[in-house]
């Protein structure tokens, strides 16, 4: 019962984070401004939705979800950093 409530709350918080990040992405003017809400969607939203696996109570799902959480913790800052550096160093003549 408590696990159900916790899982539903984590799902709601994760989807709310993704929605806020998407609205920010649609409103921000520049790529450097857009990277901030994009980091919110690709990092914490995915992790919080994956943390809701504790409510399922299945060992296979929890193991796979922990693996994906570790992977996302490494790769989400990497991809954001790569996009930021490419935006900083790209040649100005080409659109």
């Amino acid at each position: 019962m408590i696990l159900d409530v916790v899982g539903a709350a984590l799902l709601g918080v994760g989807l709310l984070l993704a929605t806020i990040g998407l609205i920010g992405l649609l409103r921000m003017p520049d790529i450097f401004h857009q990277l901030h809400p994009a980091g919110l969607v690709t990092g914490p939203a995915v992790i919080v939705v994956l943390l809701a696996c504790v409510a399922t109570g299945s060992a296979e799902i929890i193991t796979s979800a922990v693996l994906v959480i570790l992977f996302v913790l490494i790769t989400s800052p990497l991809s954001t950093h790569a996009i930021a550096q490419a935006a900083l160093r790209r040649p100005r003549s080409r659109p």
Partner: protein
Amino acid sequence: MPEVVVDIAAGWATLLLFGGGLLLLRAPDTLHRVLALDVLVAIVIILLTILSYLRDVSYYIDAALALALLALTSTLVAARYVTRGGPFS
């Protein structure tokens, strides 16, 4: 988890997918498209996770792991393409 909560979450994530498609259509530039595709992959990972909760099967999260790996590789290569004009140059 109750079935209704997971159903609502799946519908919400599908709406987020439409928002990501709108972001991809509005992108004026190569880097904006790369960023939009990164966000779309994150939303698909969320959708696959919710599908795994819905059906009580762990294979969908494994598919999400493979998708995250592919997204990292493609983002790095596309960023390198924008900077230097080619993935290996």
